């Protein structure tokens, strides 16, 4: 509950190491040329995993008040809402740019 969690060096270095490894992994996967759409899914999956690591252990959400996690999640949810409803238009138009 309290926001004063003290991380150990081991945790911090471990997380940084994992992030480094995942960066190398995502570049490596890029050169393998996985067929679409799996290439995007893998790249985004790795990015989301990295972001989660940063949020949980560098930004201390793992130990923090849950409301702060809720804030992060809801911001992502509303971003998803913006994208989803915009796509509902842009992906379903008869012509991409009507009238031009």
């Amino acid at each position: 509950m309290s926001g004063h969690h003290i991380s150990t060096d081991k945790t911090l270095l471990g997380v940084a190491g994992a992030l480094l490894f995942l960066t190398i992994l995502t570049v490596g996967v890029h050169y393998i040329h996985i067929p679409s759409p799996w290439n995007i899914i893998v790249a985004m999956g790795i990015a989301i995993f990295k972001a989660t690591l940063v949020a949980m252990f560098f930004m201390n959400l793992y130990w923090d008040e849950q409301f702060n996690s809720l804030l992060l999640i809801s911001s992502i949810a509303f971003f998803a809402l913006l994208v989803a409803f915009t796509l509902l238009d842009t992906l379903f138009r008869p012509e991409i740019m009507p009238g031009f």
Partner: protein
Amino acid sequence: MDTAESSSTLNKIQVQRFKPDDNPDKHYLNEETGLWSWLTTVDHKKIGIMYLASITFFFFIGGLMALLVRTELWTPAKTFIEANTYNQLFTLHGAVMIFLFLVPSVPAALGNFILPLQLGAKDVAFPRLNLLSYYLYLAGSFIAVYAIFSGGIDTGWTFYTPYSSSTGGAVTTMTFGVFVIGFSSILTGVNFITTIHKMRAPGLTWDKLPLFCWGLYATSIIQILATPVLAITLALVAMERILGIGIFDPALGGDPVLYQHFFWFYSHPAVYIMIVPGFGVVSEIISTFSKKHIFGYWAIALSSLAIAFIGFLVWGHHMFVSGQATLASMVFSFLTFLVGIPTGIKMFNWTATLYKGSIKLASPLLYIFGFFFLFLVGGLTGIVLGSIALDVHLHDTYYVVAHFHFVMVGGMVMAFLAGLHYWWPKITGKMYNETMAKIACGIIFVGFNVTFLPQFVMGSQGMPRRYFNYIEQFQPFHQVSTIGSYILGLGFLMVFYYLVKSIYRGKQAPANPWGSRALEWQISAMPPLHNFHHTPVIINGPYDYHKPMEEFQLGLAESGNGHGHDVEVTKEGEDLSAE
């Protein structure tokens, strides 16, 4: 109290009664004086008053522009100003009223003043940020005003591309001004949410939170989620004009409809930024003047959040004729009807609160009745506009103009005036002239209807909005509307006159002129510098009119630490006779 026995394992705190002085010598205005103390103040009450003065100023500027626009429309052709001037006037009327008046009106002006008082806090969570957000608002306003004199803008307040990225004038300056104001709005939202979460007095649990706070909470959520998207959108318009990036410019391969999506992702929820705090004001006043517990507390509180949420799902109903996909139009139209549900819940709960209440028809309540009638018309015509087939006919006509004025002026301005009258004794320590207040309310109500009812008629007959010239068959409607706008203007001037007069000539207000149970009325008529000399302790909800007044004036008996929201207040050890 049934909690007394069940709470033996929880922290107990000693409370005693603090009966407020009506008019103590020292209050927030005379403890620190001088211009410098105002300009550098971090006191939420003074910042609220500075906001109040600023928005009043801009309200009259915007109102003056509206009167000029209406006067110009007296005849079908040119009456007294050029078409280009006319375009700039309606653009600025919209931009000033929305960004400089409506958005900050209740949250930043009244909210700033009242929120910490209702929470039993000494100030908002970030007082310096609060001052910064006022100065950002002021800076943004000056940039916007500067834009008027350095070329003007004629895009309408919506800045639609590609017109806004190609027209002359000071669009870039104006978007920058709005960007800065948006930043101010975001900071206010950040401040309020944190304040409501972290600064509540001991015992003030979520189910005892005044509904005005719930309204501000829902508003702040919209502010922090929607405003950044407007900021980036306007930044993109500015970049189009400066660097020609072309995201929204069809000539460079961009998509102008995408602009409308981003713009309305903010601007539809922004409608709720303007109206939801007004709902909060209504709940407070209805309960106070019917001396009755609010009907359906949770229904009203949660319907504010529901409106805030649904408000994010409906923006495409502004774009039915923009060329967006039919599928999107259908989904948006369907979701638009859902807004009616939480809004209806509120209306029914308010009327149910009045039922069998001990109603005192004072001027704040009179304004609220005006709100009911006008907002109902505004809301129902919104449902009409939400259905695709009708909207294709009514889009960009005076019907739309009348609809959103019924919501924004009839709803929000009425609620704002009600709140202003309600809290005026707390803000200034003076009572205004009640008779004049009632007359002014009547004049505003009549003037408003005379102005905007004819617009529904001519709109449904096909009169397009924003036009300089019109065909002669619409002239009678336009003339009635113009006359109505003068009556409306007169009403607002009257309000300004007697409120300002009351500061100098009004009689001293008692600490609690309305007999309200809410916390902000349990301190002296003008609050002390740091709001409370004691740490208030809350054991009853703000609408528990069936309980005696002294149970609402409790505070920590000794200076200890009652904060932290897991503290359960019991009546054990409480000494009501001690003062």
